[in-house]
């Protein structure tokens, strides 16, 4: 455990100094800071519209960070030979991979917390402080965080066997399909009138690809039709789904990485 933690904190230290990531983060923060100003100008703008817009910015920025963060993680270690000094110590490969993954999670946590902080500030400036409003506001970023942890696990999994560029498009595609089209595939599966082939495709996509759309809560622009009866239960359910999926991805990644030549 000590090994995993040491690798994770080192990965975090490196990540928060990566220039690419900082630029992406800065662009995200800038948009969040500017957007409310633009909203005030438009007379018809409603709080919910503004809020979902800001949340979308956070989500998009975090997704880009999660992918950029993970696709280079293993290749960089190999290129700089740091992995050799680590693996020549009493460190198992699974510990190395887990450490790298948790480092990415920590980095995402720090960066998303920063964006969320700016988001809260923007809201307080506009509407004044309201405690109930705050919990309302924080729900979505927390769910996004789970979503990004899932995306990071996808990136780490692919990074054990494909090059960074391929991984970038693969993880990006998995995310896009998982967020935007998962409801489409779900309807393909559930619609009684759809053909058998459509059902098989629907089932395949549904079981293989993580359903990122689960986490697009409180975001009526993206998911306007979802009506949730029992919120708390739903949150627990989707977090458990995420943790399970992450576990499967990491175990698969470890199995690949264990046999791999570095």
């Amino acid at each position, binding site marked *: 455990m000590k090994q995993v933690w040491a690798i994770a904190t080192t990965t975090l230290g490196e990540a928060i100094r990566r220039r690419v990531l900082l630029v992406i983060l800065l662009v995200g923060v800038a948009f969040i800071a500017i957007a409310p100003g633009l909203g005030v100008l438009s007379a018809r703008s409603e709080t919910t519209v503004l809020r979902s817009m800001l949340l979308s910015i956070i989500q998009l920025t975090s997704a880009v960070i999660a992918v950029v963060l993970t696709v280079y993680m293993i290749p960089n270690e190999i290129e*700089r030979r740091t992995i050799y000094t680590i693996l020549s110590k009493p460190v198992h490969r699974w510990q190395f991979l887990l450490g790298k993954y948790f480092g990415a999670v920590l980095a995402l946590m720090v960066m998303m917390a920063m964006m969320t902080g700016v988001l809260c500030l923007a809201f307080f400036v506009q509407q004044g402080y309201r405690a109930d409003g705050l919990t309302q506001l924080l729900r979505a970023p927390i769910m996004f965080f789970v979503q990004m942890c899932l995306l990071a696990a996808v990136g780490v999994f692919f990074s054990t066997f494909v090059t960074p560029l391929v991984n970038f498009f693969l993880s990006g595609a998995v995310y896009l399909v998982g967020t935007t089209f998962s409801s489409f595939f779900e309807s393909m599966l559930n619609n009684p009138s759809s053909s058998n082939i459509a059902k098989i495709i629907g089932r395949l996509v549904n079981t293989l690809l993580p359903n990122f759309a689960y986490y697009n809560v409180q975001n009526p622009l993206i998911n306007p039709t979802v009506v949730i009866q029992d919120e708390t239960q739903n949150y627990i359910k989707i977090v458990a789904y995420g943790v399970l999926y992450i576990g499967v991805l990491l175990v698969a990644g470890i199995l690949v990485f264990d046999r791999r030549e*570095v």
Partner: protein
Amino acid sequence: MAAAIETQNLTKTYKNRSGKVNVVDQLNLSVEEGEIFGFLGPNGAGKTTTIKMLLGIIYPSAGQAQVLGKEAGDIGIHRSISYLPEKPYYYEHMTGMEILKFYGALFGLSDTAMYQRLLERVNLAGDQHKTISQYSKGMQQRIGLAQSLLNDPKLLFLDEPTGGLDPIAHIEIRDLILQFREEGKTVFISSHALSDVERICDRVAIINKGKIAAQGKLDDLLRGGRIEIIADNLTSEFAQGLKLNGATTSFNAGRLIVDIDEAEDFNGLIDGIRNAKGKVVSVLPRRRRLEDLFVETVRNLQSQGASK
């Protein structure tokens, strides 16, 4: 004495454009405990690949290797060994002290006093709060050596430890390695050159194209050099009258320069010069250089290959 490293027909095959290549080819090595072993060979000979197999970072295509009595790659032996990679890089944002804390944590250690002693030992105590990005190459190599000593290893793998360093850094590293020998550690050094560091090896193996070309004591391997004799006050008749096997001679304005095989009768030549009232200016033994040995062993291997 027990063997610290043993390999039996250790082989690593890689695919490249022209097909499969045995980058390490049926290697049989035996390194005794407590010795400084030089693993020498030109670039691309397969040195790093061999070390990676011994560490379990990559896996042999055929053959076996044992390190400290266990199969290579056994995580248990990683407690008693350490590795300094070729041209290493350490996380640039960390300070020297943080590097030791990080690698120490990988052993489950958190002994700041010990880290401090190690930094002093490699002469970095004064720079421990500078980040690695501010370190010179020599300092980076020294922090590398410090991290390789964290577990007080029995066996150290140093891959090209002097690559790209200046002569003073060479001597610093040589002195550290001499201390390791005092402490009874086994040191496995790979190198493509013969600097001060490799000269302190108890034994060396010369590897070329994945095969051992020669092994033994460095002195023995480098024996059989040539001797250069310079003499003045001689006549051209004397120079022309010389009958020497495999020697190159040059004569100019009374000065004779002869480059003769050590095994030839160079004492007879010196007597001859004196009898002719010549004056011997210098007799200079020329040891073979490692590069010569590389060239020779490569040639031998090729001629063996051709005769097969």
